[in-house]
């Protein structure tokens, strides 16, 4: 087993080193595409980190992404970059902990509804604050961050998320979450502090999302609430994670990569019917792939292994 882990980490490190070379290609279009791919990979994986095992459907991705982006818009010129990222992460964690503590006690559907509106709520609060207190709506982002820097930061974050997810799945917390996902009542009777486990993972997942928002912020030179809190991000991330299969750590990537490419193509070729196609893709996934691509793989592999055992038995 440990040999397998060592081999796997060597492979992952090699892949990481190869991916780190992408900005060296010198092609701005491919770099931009690679940034989009990494952005959605991290967001979808972070989404799956919490929603996969617990089966709570969260629509709050944008809320945290926006908090991160806005932190950069406000503090980007005042503080050194690492400190800005740290502040963003802390803010995201605080918001997530408050939201988690107040809503995660409630059962699943109420949670969906609350997260559904959370983005709007935070956006309205930001707008209200900017209009009434700071008297600006929209801020310019002047930070010394290049596209390549954004890419490398996202790549580092991707590696960190996968490592984190792998560690959580092997920890007591990961086990507790899987029991919660199976049956919350049973989990409570087993003596699992379900609220703590859920809030802890929700906070971790949200902090990662906030960091993505902060890292991506320098891509725009001008930020206003409707850009930072664009609710489309929540929806796209949700579709990606579901297509890939949120019950596996590596599942969401399988959805994020093809769908990012698809959306890229669609928004360039068919900007007017983009929403309709998005909806159709979503419906297809729900009906055809209830457990995502990862579920499909598992089904196929159990079918083939089932055949072998049958053959052996015969």
């Amino acid at each position, binding site marked *: 087993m440990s040999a397998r882990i060592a081999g796997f980490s060597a492979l992952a490190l090699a892949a990481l080193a190869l991916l780190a070379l992408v900005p060296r290609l010198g092609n701005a279009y491919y770099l931009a595409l690679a940034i989009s791919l990494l952005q959605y990979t991290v967001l979808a994986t972070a989404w799956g980190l919490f929603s996969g095992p617990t*089966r709570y*459907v969260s629509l709050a991705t944008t809320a945290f992404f926006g908090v991160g982006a806005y932190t950069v818009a406000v503090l980007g010129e005042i503080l050194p970059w690492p400190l800005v990222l740290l502040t963003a992460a802390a803010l995201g964690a605080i918001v997530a902990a408050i939201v988690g503590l*107040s*809503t995660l*006690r*409630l*059962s*699943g*559907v*109420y949670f*969906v*509804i*609350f997260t*559904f*509106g*959370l983005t*709007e*709520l935070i956006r*309205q*609060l930001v*707008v*209200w604050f900017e*209009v*009434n207190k700071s008297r600006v709506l929209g801020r310019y982002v002047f930070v010394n961050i290049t596209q390549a820097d954004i890419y490398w930061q996202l790549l580092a974050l991707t590696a960190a998320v996968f490592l984190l997810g792998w560690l959580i799945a092997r920890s007591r917390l990961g086990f507790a979450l899987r029991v919660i996902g199976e049956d919350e009542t049973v989990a409570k009777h087993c003596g699992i502090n379900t609220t703590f486990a859920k809030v802890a993972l929700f906070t971790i997942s949200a902090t990662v999302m906030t960091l993505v928002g902060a890292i991506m912020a320098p891509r725009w030179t001008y930020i206003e609430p409707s850009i930072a809190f664009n*609710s489309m991000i929540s*929806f796209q991330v*949700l579709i990606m994670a*579901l297509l890939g299969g949120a019950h596996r750590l590596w599942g969401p990537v399988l959805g994020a990569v093809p769908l990012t490419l698809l959306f890229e193509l669609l928004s360039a070729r068919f900007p*007017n*019917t*983009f*929403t*309709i*196609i*998005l*909806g*159709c*893709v*979503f*419906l297809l*996934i*729900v*009906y055809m792939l*209830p457990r995502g691509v990862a579920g499909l793989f598992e089904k196929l592999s159990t079918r083939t292994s089932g055949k072998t055992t049958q053959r052996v038995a015969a």
Partner: protein
Amino acid sequence: MTNAILTGLMLGGMYALIAMGLTLQYGVARIMNLSYGEFLIAAAFASHWLFTGWAVSPFVGLALVVPLAFALNFAIYKLLLTPLVRRAPNRDALEVDSILATFGLTFVIQGSMLALFGGAYYSYSFLAFPVQFLGETVAANRLTALGITILLGLALYAALTRTRAGTAVRAVAVDPFAAQLVAINVPQASALTFALGGALVAAAGVLVSTFLTFSASSGVVFTMKALIVVVMGGVGNMLGCLVAGLALGLSEALVASYVDPGLTLAVNFALFLAVLLVKPAGLFGRATR
């Protein structure tokens, strides 16, 4: 003060009307319909088109749009949602599946409306004159809408409590499995209730279009308001729907006139959270889980 309260009550009545259909769909058919607001906007567009293009009064529009919406929602339940109902091993799974499916539907409807009407805001002038009511000046169209809302609410309440079909529907809401044991056709009752919910939201859409401006993408706001009212009042509870709707409208109007109009949504959520933390099943809900 009277003005704020009156505005709040009219707003609240509208919220209650908007949420009535959803509480039926979710409480009885167990479909958490996230595309609910899109149906409202579609009805509003239909009414706008009938009025500006054909000079059809929204009252006549109601008679045209509502049956159409009933048929459409019945078809949607039969074609799109029945496979999910069959597939779901339990209620929670159906809820998650229905959220995802109707979510996809949201984009299809919204995208179609965007393609048809563009992103601009629409409105038309119908009964837009001031009248005196309880010593305050209010818009006639809002008052008419409130009157029709009350009539619809009473009719629905009577239908649910006084008729055989209504009793069957309430039985399904309480326990779909036991309802089957007393010879209630549960799939049929669910489909009809879902369609009835769709008809109600279409009625709400027509009424709302007489006094509010709307655009192809404003459906989400109505879905959110309806969800908040339904959950706050207790799922599937008509009275809860009314009380929660009024509470929401009142608090919104009071905050808008005395604190800051920019904070209405924040008040919605604060109220929503406060109710859920004290009574997780809603104001009039029974604690089932």
